[in-house]
């Protein structure tokens, strides 16, 4: 055996406890990364077996070596290309026959297999008793190790089995019957005759896969080049089989494999009196009911939405306070010590970097709350059911059942909504869904509607807000139809086929790991985009468009490069009724994040004379503020969690329970100064104000969204989406303004 790196892989169906076994095997030595060029998680670790260093890889869950999804392609390619020294096939004992399908394929691939018999406790509970020795014997001597959680010495036994594993694999022969065997033999001969093929692939396995018409593998062979004759020969062999047997070769192969499996299971498994209806079945009879399923789903989504928007709010405010108060003061103080006080560098750090990056980091509590809710739904087993419940509605739109969830998440925040599309298996479905999510009006856009609503419509502002949400949904539905019925016309929505794991209590470890990873990737990825954008914007606001550079950082606002740029954009927006450089400027900064829109308007319309002077405070004061702020945020979070109950019950018509207040009455947040309201009234007509809010709703929500799209789908898609949103926003805003004028609205 080569002394160089000894490679072990864990392979198996999804939801068989593979990750848990991987964790037990590798302990703290594991490393989580991504497969090259993919967003699929790659888990690796190192272990020591009898002084030999071994390299362990956890392959993504797969049902078969015939690959469909990205995960399955990764698993298959790794097994073929890397030729691991040992393959630990993790098997769910309570679903043995289906799980053995993959094991049979692995044995046909002639890789050295160890069978890890997992979840025997669940099998026993269902009255299934499996004899490991008999199973091993029937599989031609493949080692069978019981690895159920709690099994004594399971890791040691597994390591021992790996250590003693015969390097010469025992090929397993499924008898496919004379008609197929003749064709398989002929194809195998052809493959052996081609030395480079025989070196890379197991000949008999490749022959069977080709007869099964494994499209992805055929694609792979075509890409390698020079195998067209073989592929054609396999196709005509499959046609001959179908002509003689009147059955498709693929069906016959699957049937023979199951017959073979049945012969193995017979005599190794004793089925006792099984209780056919499980706890999960009884829950599903209510939760996925044809009448109750949808209302229950909507109720849960409402709770997730409440949780994300309100429960995180106190910590959002706390984070804001942290950046605007102590952090800014400390930076200013530190720069003062170094002698950089009142310089452009201070302005860059405070107005550019801290304000910009801080503006994004305040989203961390929102994401934390959202990912917690999602992880709970996912780990409890409900997520898989929600796709089933929404399947009918979504297929009518040409979307997949699972697309509904990211869209709901989009009402909270677009960035996690784009990441939430990862729950979809099909790449095209993911792209379409991610393309639609920004039209779901996110929480950051709401303050702009509120401001314009109160300024121009007073007590009727609620109507404007509601209209914006509805407009967003309508645009999303129309975009969906455009994508699914025109651009991806003729595309068959992959039919929904998912395994439903049994309901269970979410594991704290899985949930917290999920949250840490997802929030971490947001901070690093969106953070870098925002940092760059903030610095660029600061320079554009500081560099004069004309005159000498000595005015740097001391430039009149409407002489900055930024205003020059805004003036360039303004004429494009005039058909929509807001072609001033101030409005354009607010929209340009709004590209960074919608939170910035009102801040920019305050700066441009009201000017800097109202700029708050930094109140001096001592370091101890600041620490005190942080501690009390944190405590307050904790209490308010508790309050918001409790308030989900009355707010949810209030959905029942006629019921109106008050919210709980833990810290006395909260003061309403002041959105704008009176001077801004007056300035807006003279700058916009009511009709132009509506067109402006429509534009805010429909154009690129924030740089973090573009960053998330780029991370998930690449620059091309991120730019397509941004371009499309700008175009749609402009079109709809123009239609609103011009149409309104024709009807004689908003002129007064």
């Amino acid at each position, binding site marked *: 055996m080569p002394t160089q790196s000894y490679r072990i892989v864990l392979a198996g169906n999804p939801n068989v406890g593979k990750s848990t076994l991987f964790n037990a095997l590798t302990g703290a030595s594991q490393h989580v990364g991504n497969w090259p060029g993919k967003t699929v998680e790659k888990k690796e670790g190192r272990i020591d077996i009898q002084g030999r260093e071994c390299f362990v890889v956890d392959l993504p869950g797969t049902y078969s070596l015939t690959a469909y999804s990205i995960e399955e392609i990764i698993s298959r390619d790794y097994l073929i290309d890397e030729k691991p020294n040992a393959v630990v096939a993790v098997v769910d004992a309570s*679903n043995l026959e*289906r799980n053995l399908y993959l094991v049979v394929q692995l044995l046909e691939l002639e890789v050295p297999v160890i069978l890890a018999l997992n979840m025997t406790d669940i099998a026993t509970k269902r009255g299934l008793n499996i004899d490991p020795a008999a199973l091993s014997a029937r599989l031609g001597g493949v080692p069978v190790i019981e690895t159920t959680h709690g099994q004594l010495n399971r890791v040691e036994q597994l390591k021992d089995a790996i250590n003693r594993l015969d390097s010469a694999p025992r090929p397993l022969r499924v008898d496919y019957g004379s008609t197929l065997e003749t064709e398989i033999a002929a194809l195998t001969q052809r493959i052996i005759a081609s030395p480079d093929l025989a070196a890379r692939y197991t000949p008999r396995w490749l022959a069977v896969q080709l007869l099964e018409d494994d499209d992805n593998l055929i694609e792979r062979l075509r890409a390698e080049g020079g195998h067209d004759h073989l592929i054609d020969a396999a196709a005509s062999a499959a046609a001959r089989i179908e002509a003689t047997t009147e059955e498709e070769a693929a069906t016959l192969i699957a*049937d023979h494999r199951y017959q073979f499996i049945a012969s193995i299971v017979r005599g190794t498994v004793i089925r006792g009196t099984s209780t*056919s209806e499980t706890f999960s079945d009884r829950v599903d009879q209510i939760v996925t009911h*044809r009448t109750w399923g949808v209302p229950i789903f909507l109720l849960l989504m409402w709770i997730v939405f409440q949780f994300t928007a309100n429960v995180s709010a106190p910590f959002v405010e706390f984070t804001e306070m942290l950046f605007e108060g102590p952090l800014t003061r400390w930076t200013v103080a530190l720069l003062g010590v170094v002698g950089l006080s009142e310089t452009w560098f201070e302005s860059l750090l405070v107005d550019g970097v801290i304000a910009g990056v801080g503006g994004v980091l305040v989203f961390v509590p929102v994401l934390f709350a959202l990912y917690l809710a999602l992880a709970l739904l996912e780990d409890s087993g409900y997520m898989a059911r929600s796709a*089933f419940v929404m399947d009918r509605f979504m297929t009518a739109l040409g979307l997949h059942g699972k697309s509904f969830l990211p869209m709901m998440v989009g009402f909270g925040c677009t960035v996690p909504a784009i990441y939430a599309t990862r729950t979809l298996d099909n790449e095209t479905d993911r792209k379409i869904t991610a393309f639609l999510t920004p039209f779901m009006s996110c929480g950051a856009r709401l303050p702009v509607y509120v401001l314009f609503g109160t300024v121009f419509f007073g007590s009727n502002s609620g109507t404007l807000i509601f209209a914006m949400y509805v407009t967003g949904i309508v645009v999303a539905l129309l975009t969906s139809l455009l994508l699914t019925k025109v651009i991806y016309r003729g595309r068959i929505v992959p039919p*929904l086929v998912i395994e439903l794991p049994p309901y269970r209590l979410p594991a704290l470890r899985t949930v917290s790991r999920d949250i840490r990873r997802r929030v971490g990737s947001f901070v690093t990825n969106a953070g870098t985009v925002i940092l760059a954008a903030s610095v660029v914007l600061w320079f554009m606001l500081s560099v004069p468009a004309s005159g000498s550079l000595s005015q740097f950082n001391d430039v009149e606002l409407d002489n900055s490069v930024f205003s020059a740029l805004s003036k360039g954009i303004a004429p494009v927006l005039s058909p929509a009724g807001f072609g001033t450089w101030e409005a354009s400027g607010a929209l340009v900064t709004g590209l960074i994040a919608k939170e910035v829109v009102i801040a920019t308007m305050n700066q441009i319309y009201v000017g800097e004379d109202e700029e708050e002077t930094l109140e001096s405070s001592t370091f101890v004061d600041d620490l005190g503020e942080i501690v009390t702020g944190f405590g307050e945020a904790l209490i308010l979070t508790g309050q918001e969690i409790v308030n989900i109950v009355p707010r949810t019950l209030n959905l029942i018509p006629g019921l109106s329970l008050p919210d709980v207040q833990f810290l006395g009455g909260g003061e309403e947040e002041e959105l704008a100064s009176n001077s801004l309201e007056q300035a807006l009234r003279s700058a916009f007509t009511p009709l132009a104000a509506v067109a402006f809010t429509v534009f805010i709703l429909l154009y690129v929500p924030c740089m973090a969204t573009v960053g998330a799209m780029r991370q998930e789908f690449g620059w091309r898609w991120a730019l397509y989406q941004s371009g499309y949103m700008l175009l749609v926003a402009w079109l709809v805003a123009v239609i609103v303004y011009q149409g309104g004028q024709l009807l004689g609205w908003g002129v007064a």
Partner: protein
Amino acid sequence: MTMLAKPIEPAAPLPLSMVTSGQTVELVEIRSGHRLRRRLAELGLHVGTPMRVVQGTLRGPVILAVKDDCRLALGRGITQRIIVMPTASDKA
């Protein structure tokens, strides 16, 4: 809920989408392309597989207990193309 007539004569094959909750059936035929048929086989659904409908929604998606070992949810696009034969269930 409508009254369900007790089948006295031998049951006829029907699409899976028409089967009501609680009924046990056996898979007779999958009327689809070989790709989908192969995938279903890998998930444990092939001709002759005994299964129980956990949640039938009438013309919609279905939740199945396959061989009593695992639960599969199938969308309405497929359930109309899977033909099954009702079997006498041992438990009502």
